[in-house]
């Protein structure tokens, strides 16, 4: 048993970190978040060159065929860089849905362009109830047409196609289809834009059944948790650096236990989230029976920890942490959005309860 990263995993993580630090440093991230879509074609093309757009998909569709642990590592680094744009929507979310539900032909048609970096995509799930419970999806396709409204759809404006979760199936809608209206929502996270997507008798192609979605959503959920880990790590790093240099009362503030012990808690919360995320990635990759539980454990813990780490980081920075110019709040905003997306801690606790209380036990595999 070896719960450390392998050499190739370390290499992937390090190179991703260096890549994002070089291609999307803070100034570039801030430039992109001030654009309408937070999308940059040149950056996308570089992501494609790195193989990130096809990271977990089979080579037959142009993917790189890496595992779920590797996906977690990549997402941890996008979280650390607060990468703007549709990598999560396109690759992790739309890509995983396509892989889970569609036929080989449709994978060629939709997944392959994603892998090749030629298409952006997203998945429209939530409706007015904003409930992550699949029971609360009410939209129905009638004769290959969709009508109604989907909310909180990430990166919809720059998607070439939108995958729509309906009650009676999973559908693809072309961005140029008639009867499709996409309007921006204004939300806390400035780096991942949200949209209202309205359909009125919009032609849609059915690509699979909604029953095949849970695994794809589990991958997306774990990936969001991984991103949260990266954000926590960066918040911790920035904060520790500040606590070492900022002086009050003639001492670095990190010498005061009120500050130092909060840093220790941030470390504990970050590392524990990371352990949970890596485990979830491994369990997903192995199709382990506790995969779903371990995803909920990771998302539950990271949702709460992400907020706690952000709160502590801002507090330790004092007034400086409350300014726009300091990056902390940008991580905090992303963490807020990710905390809710794909179910908040309460949602996942209930999901864990249903697995460990109602159905006996489905805890982590122990040797």
């Amino acid at each position, binding site marked *: 048993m070896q719960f450390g990263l392998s050499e190739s995993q370390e290499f992937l993580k390090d190179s991703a970190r260096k890549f994002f630090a070089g291609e999307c440093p803070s100034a570039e991230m801030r430039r992109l978040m001030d654009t309408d879509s937070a999308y940059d074609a040149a950056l996308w093309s570089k992501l494609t060159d790195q193989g990130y757009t096809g990271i977990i998909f089979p080579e037959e569709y142009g993917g790189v065929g890496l595992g779920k642990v590797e996906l977690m590592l990549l997402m941890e680094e996008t979280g650390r860089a607060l990468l703007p744009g549709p990598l999560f929507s396109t690759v992790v979310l739309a890509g995983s849905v396509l892989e889970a539900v569609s036929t080989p032909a449709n994978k060629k048609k939709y997944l392959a362009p994603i892998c090749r970096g030629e298409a952006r995509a997203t998945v429209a799930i*939530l409706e007015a*109830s*904003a*409930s992550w*419970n699949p029971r609360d999806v009410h939209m129905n396709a009638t004769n290959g047409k969709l009508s109604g409204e989907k*909310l*909180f759809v990430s990166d919809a404006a720059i998607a070439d196609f939108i995958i729509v979760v309906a009650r009676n199936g999973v559908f693809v809608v072309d961005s140029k289809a008639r009867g499709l209206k996409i309007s921006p*929502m*204004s*939300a*806390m*996270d400035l780096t991942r834009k949200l949209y*209202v997507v309205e359909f009125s008798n919009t032609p849609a192609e059915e690509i699979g059944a909604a029953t095949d979605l849970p695994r794809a959503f589990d991958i997306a959920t774990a990936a969001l948790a991984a991103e949260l880990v990266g954000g926590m790590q960066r918040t911790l790093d920035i904060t520790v650096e500040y606590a070492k240099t900022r*002086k*009050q*009362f*003639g*001492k670095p503030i990190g010498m*005061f*236990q*009120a*500050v130092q012990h909060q840093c220790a808690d941030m470390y504990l919360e970050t590392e524990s989230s990371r352990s949970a995320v890596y485990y979830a990635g491994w369990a997903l990759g192995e199709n382990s029976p506790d995969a779903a539980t371990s995803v909920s454990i990771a998302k539950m813990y990271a949702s709460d920890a992400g907020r706690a780490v952000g*709160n502590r980081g*801002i*507090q330790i920075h*004092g*007034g400086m*942490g*409350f*300014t*726009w*110019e*300091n990056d*902390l*709040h940008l991580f*905090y*905003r992303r963490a*807020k*959005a990710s905390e*809710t*997306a794909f179910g*908040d801690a*309460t949602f996942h606790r209930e999901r864990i309860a249903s697995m460990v209380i109602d159905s006996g036990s489905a805890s982590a595999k122990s040797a």
Partner: protein
Amino acid sequence: MDLNLTTEELTFRDELRAWLVFNVPKDWNEWREKPIEESFPYLRAWQQKLHDGRWAAVSWPKQYGGRSATLMQQALFWEEMARADAPPMANSLGLGLIGPTIIACGTEAQKKRYIPKILSAEEIWCQGFSEPNAGSDLAGLQMEARLDGDLYVVNGQKVWTSYGWVGDWCELVVRTDASAAKHKGLTVLLVDMKSAGVEVRPLRQMTGESEFNELFFRDVRVPVENILGKVNDGWNVAMSTLMYERGSYGARLHLIFKRYITRLIELSRTIQRNGRPAAEDPLIRQKLAQCSAEIEIMRFNQMRAFSRITATGVPGPEGSIQKIFWSELNQRLQQIAQELLGSYGQLLSGDTHAIDKGIWSYAYLRTRGNTIEAGTSEVQRNIIGHFVLGLPRSY
């Protein structure tokens, strides 16, 4: 112990309540959402109206235009203002903090010169305390004031100044003796913000607003008659200003928080959770109840503190628990709001799907500042540890 209002308190409250019924502007709702730059003349006019009714500074002595109100009456004042949904006053720092400091420490000439225009909102005041390198450690202030004949020449920077953009005058803490021990070389100056060399820049906060300013002073000349209190006694003058910050103003928080929780309870009746109204969800019920209870306890704490101050004459360090309590409660309250609103909680003002025009996302972010501004929670716990419990200084 008697929590019924006394006859004097009832009379005060009823007079105020009646006055507010007739005088609170009916069109405040149209102005509320506008940028403060636009509504400021409106707020000045409102303060002038309050002043006409002798309601602008009820805590001030009668001879200076106040009503010599007791602390409990002051608390009633803020409660009634909140209850009537009255607009804030334009010159809130002048009325709440700086005016009282001038009355306490100023010369007769200073009182005559500044007090009337504070009351009428003709001259708006701001406060120059914090500096980039002196936040929690106020005694470490570095802004230099060099004596040159009968003038001080001031150089340096201040941060976190509310009303800096509109301030006519500033209560400024400067270092007049660099060789003295940290808090012994400070002096308070009353500075005309229109002086040459004063630059005001907006300081953008994490909420996206610029509620505060940075002030830059380059060779700003301030006449020595503008010293408030004594030279090198600025620490005590500034501390007396900060003491007013912990005053009766907090009484209105109770009604503000109550309005929040009432609205959340209302929302919980329509928001669905697990196939029924959130108001019926046991988890949401526990959280709303906990928060409601804490809002009441905050008020009980405040009322006890007011009674103690009334009995002893001075606000003590126990005030630090009020600061910790309300700031951390407001954070818990907004967290509950977010849990209740779910994905809708993240929507900003201006979004058509935002609930209550996006106040919840704003409040969520804004409350992060609550445990930092006006003395961080860490500083407040130091004050309780050292000054209330008698533990050795930890810093």
